[in-house]
């Protein structure tokens, strides 16, 4: 059943396959993000109470939910790497971590910028904000573990264990607004039944969300490829690639 996946366990195959995906992902990311952001920031109707301040929603919500999504992806990679000792999974977890940390930081910063005028405070130690901050610390821990060891396999194992321990935080972030009294509001888009938003506000959100998903896949793809090269630098195929690249540069120079 999983036989078709086996060729991609080879770093060389994966490297070339992700190279072919990259231009398509970049083109669609640019398309969706430009449509989504222009629509959201310039044309979507303003909220009746918050006015234009509500537009930060279009960046805050995708960043926050994708910060959890990336972590979940990283956890799956860590799990496969620990159980099947599949080296490329470590490379992809290492590629995901800094992107996730960045999106977590974006969610926290845009949230604070919105909270100051709307709530009256930048920060409050409620369950949602605190658990999202813990997610940022988990990412930073995973990044530092990936870089703390000379031996990449050992580093992957240590970071993978921390990643799996931190998975517990994901349902806590997601349901914090339902389980406890928080200042943070409940979810608008991802709830059963109708989203609490009018349709002309929701469409630009969907474009932005898809745009951010594609943007993340572009960045992760690039990082994944450079991780593969760094981890396989002594292999002949990487040497051939570098030699071909140098030759190309030489002929270009002449």
């Amino acid at each position, binding site marked *: 059943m999983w036989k078709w996946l086996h060729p991609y366990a080879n770093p060389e195959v994966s490297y070339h396959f992700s190279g072919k995906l990259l231009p398509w992902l970049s083109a669609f990311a640019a398309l969706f993000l430009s449509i989504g952001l222009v629509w959201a920031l310039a044309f979507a109707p303003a909220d*009746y109470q918050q006015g234009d301040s509500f537009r930060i929603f279009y960046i805050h919500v995708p960043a926050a939910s994708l910060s959890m999504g990336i972590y979940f992806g990283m956890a799956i990679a860590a799990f496969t790497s620990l*159980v099947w000792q599949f080296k490329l999974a470590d490379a992809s977890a290492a590629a995901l971590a800094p992107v996730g940390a960045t999106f977590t930081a974006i969610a926290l910063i845009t949230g604070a910028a919105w909270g100051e005028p709307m709530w009256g405070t930048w920060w409050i130690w409620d*369950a949602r904000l605190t658990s999202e901050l813990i997610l940022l610390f988990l990412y930073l821990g995973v990044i530092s573990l990936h870089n703390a060891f000379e031996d990449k396999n050992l580093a992957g194992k240590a970071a993978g264990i921390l990643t*799996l321990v931190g998975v517990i935080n994901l349902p806590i972030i997601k349901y914090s607004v339902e389980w406890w009294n*928080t200042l943070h509001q409940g*979810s608008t888009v991802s709830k059963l039944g109708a989203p609490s938003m009018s349709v002309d506000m929701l469409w630009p959100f969907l474009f932005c969300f898809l745009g951010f998903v594609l943007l993340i896949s572009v960045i992760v793809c690039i990082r994944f490829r450079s991780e593969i090269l760094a981890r396989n630098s002594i292999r002949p195929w990487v040497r051939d690639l570098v030699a071909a690249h140098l030759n190309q540069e030489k002929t270009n120079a002449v």
Partner: protein
Amino acid sequence: MNPRRKKRLTIVGSIVVGIAVVAGLVLYALSQNIDLFYNPTEITQGKKDSGIKPKIGQRIRIGGLVVPNTVKRDPDNLKVSFSLSDMKMPIVFSDSDPMISVHYDGILPDLFREGQGIVANGTLTRSSSGELYIEASEVLAKHDENYMPTELADAAGKDYKKLEYSDKQLNNN
């Protein structure tokens, strides 16, 4: 799957399940401390599971909906008082709901409206007539998850004007 992988799968799986159980129990034990605020009902009748009531003089946070027609503002300064009732859906106010009034001296956040959810941080106090109220040092607005364009809000007959402050009120502080 070969036996070594199966063994690793069991070890990793049981570590994750074990930690999930530990985290679940810790959160369950802490659940009341994680709540950001008390509801008015919890102040008068105690928390639902434990019956713990805040004491007079204790610093607490209260969260609730601003009851319409209870906002009293001093025309000369920034002193304001209003009553809160429990946050619940759908929003209906009745006189029989437990209410706690909040006294505050300062500028309220932009989203402060009658019927809006707010969280106030302050001291639980008993007035000379025996009523409980909160002497607040901070008032935060809680936004709900609903977003609506102005035209729809107008069509639904919603009142969403911001509070305005006169020069007199602002200068006396």
